[in-house]
């Protein structure tokens, strides 16, 4: 991209966003329960969670479209509560793009500039810059309905950026696009965000999208922040069973902590076999626990050995360089295992019994229903 153009578009630097103890409820139903997190200036953070987890409510609170019941939202230490949404200068890209259907692309992009009283000459120069930034120079006089979905999305981004916002909010901006286009626009967004240095908060329910675009993720569930961290932290060190299963796939085995000490934990699996993990026992003996592992942390072999779980092969799928195997333990628990297609593999006829070795270093243990933690 033209560096001179960036210098022009970059006028207002991104500001740091800080959300503290935000609480909101609709008709006595809690939508947000004590949400706190920070977005450092110039960073891109994804709000991730299943639909109905409160992420849209949170975004609207920051935008000023709804007034949260309690809590604080600060932008570079300025409390936003007394500032009405039209004076916040926060850019927002809506899920439906919300382009004004009766205005041309240029008029849409210029809308915020007119609101803020930018002189006419400056306005048209700026609109031209922004259309260049999103590569739609030739489309200024078109109406939104004459554009494709991806082009509409880029107009929405240009319109949000027009007023030099110090914060950019994106509500599921790629939701309505097909997979290939989504990937392309995600890359474009990252590049644009980095060159403009604008603080960006993107809402998504797609964990892959969140990992692609964001430096840090805020994982939400049922109105609360579940975990905040880099994509690697969330994937490798999930703090809860929800975080573990939401990010990527995790196989779940319900078992019982039967013993252990300061160095190891002994689990009894549903088929009465015993698995020893090299980690201090964090549970009272006899409590129900949940063992989870990633498909890539389970290795399959043909022959039985102590510590290996027998499982029936149900299905085998090729995912590029990998083979994904759907297996079933003897008690019916479904598990997934992954193997490189380059590795020497046992014969994979559906229905045969294989033996799974779970990576005891990398698997996770969470309290099960009715479990008591000893620490």
């Amino acid at each position, binding site marked *: 991209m033209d560096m001179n153009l960036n210098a022009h578009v970059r006028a207002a630097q991104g500001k740091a966003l800080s959300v503290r103890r935000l609480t909101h409820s609709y008709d006595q139903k809690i939508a947000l329960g004590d949400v706190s997190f920070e977005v450092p200036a110039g960073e891109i953070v994804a709000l991730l969670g299943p639909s109905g987890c409160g992420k849209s409510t949170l975004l609207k609170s920051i*935008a000023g479209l709804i007034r949260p019941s309690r809590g604080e939202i600060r932008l570079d230490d300025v409390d936003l509560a007394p500032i009405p949404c039209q004076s*916040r200068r926060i850019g927002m890209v809506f899920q*439906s793009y*919300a382009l*004004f259907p*009766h205005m041309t692309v240029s008029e849409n992009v210029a*809308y915020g500039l007119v609101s803020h009283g930018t002189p006419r000459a400056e306005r048209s120069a700026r609109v031209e810059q922004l259309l260049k930034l999103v590569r739609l120079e030739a489309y200024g006089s078109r109406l939104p*309905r004459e554009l494709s979905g991806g082009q509409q999305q880029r107009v929405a981004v240009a319109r*949000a950026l027009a007023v030099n916002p110090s914060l950019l909010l994106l509500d599921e901006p790629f939701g309505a696009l097909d997979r290939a286009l989504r990937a392309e626009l995600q890359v474009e967004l990252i590049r644009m965000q980095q060159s403009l240095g604008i603080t960006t908060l993107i809402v998504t329910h797609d964990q892959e999208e969140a990992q692609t675009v964001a430096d840090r993720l805020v994982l939400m569930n049922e109105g609360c922040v579940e975990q905040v961290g880099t994509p690697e932290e969330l994937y490798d060190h999930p703090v809860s069973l929800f975080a573990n299963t939401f990010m990527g796939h995790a196989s779940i085995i319900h078992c019982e902590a039967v013993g252990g000490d300061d160095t190891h934990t002994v689990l009894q699996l549903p088929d009465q076999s015993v698995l020893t993990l090299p980690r201090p026992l964090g549970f009272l003996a006899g409590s129900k626990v949940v063992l989870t592992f990633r498909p890539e942390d389970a290795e399959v072999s043909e022959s039985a050995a102590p510590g290996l779980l027998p499982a029936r092969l149900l299905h085998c799928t090729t995912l590029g360089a990998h083979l994904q195997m759907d297996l079933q333990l003897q008690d019916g628990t479904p598990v997934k295992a992954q193997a490189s297609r380059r590795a020497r593999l046992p014969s994979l006829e559906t229905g045969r019994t294989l033996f799974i070795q779970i990576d005891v270093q990398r698997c996770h243990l969470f309290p099960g229903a009715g479990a008591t933690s000893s620490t």
Partner: protein
Amino acid sequence: MNALAAPSLRNLPYFGPMLTASVLFFLAPLVVLAVYSFSSPEGASLANYARFANDEFSVSVLIDTIRLGGSVVLGTTLLGLPIALLYWHAGPRIRQWLIFLILLPMLVSNVVRTFAWIVILGRQGLISSTLLYTGLSSTPTNLMYTEFGLILALCQIELPLLLLPIIAVLSRANRSLVDAARMLGAGSWRVLLTVLVPVMLPGLLAGWILVFASACTSYVTQAVIGGARLIYLPQFIYREVGVLFSWPYAAAVAFVLLVSTGVVMLSISALSRHRRLVGHA
């Protein structure tokens, strides 16, 4: 409607009944009327139209009729826009009540509604007695047989015709448009003028067509509230048909009414085909 294929003979069973009904009950009478309007003692001629155009009174009746339609369109718009905005901002319960209240007058016959207005507009009516009681006027006010009284009554009677298309458009409108405008720094007035009104416009134009056509041709209301003092084209035609038995002339006047209101309506609908308005309603 580009989704509908051009009528072909294969689709005859589908459009045949409608076509027959249209030809028999709409096109045929219209042709008969047209033939009548050109007949005169000297054979086929434009004499009836010439008589209308050369008669100052007839032309003034035509102008009054168009002006009445225009005034009612303006009046219903001024009354309707606030109600439409209330509908936009209301929750689902209030919306249901609003639709019920808007439809309620339509359940009562036009004749009954017109007679109700006599009670309100007359010398001893609601408006007059309220003005006397509050001391705003020392003499009774009579709004019967005045243009203002007639416009007032017609505005109330035609209001649902304006509101229903607007509400249909608003129910489908994307609420994020207003949020987007506010995020871009627009205040309430700017949101109203640059977002809400343009979004409503296709419905508003459809409503204008309905209200204009209905107000120009509302014979009963015009006759009862306008009385003998205010004459509009429908009464004018009735007089030629029922009193003076001058059917050819009445047919010509009817065609003048049809064409003049038709021109106004066609120009409104041409507006609604503007490129900026197509497709988002």
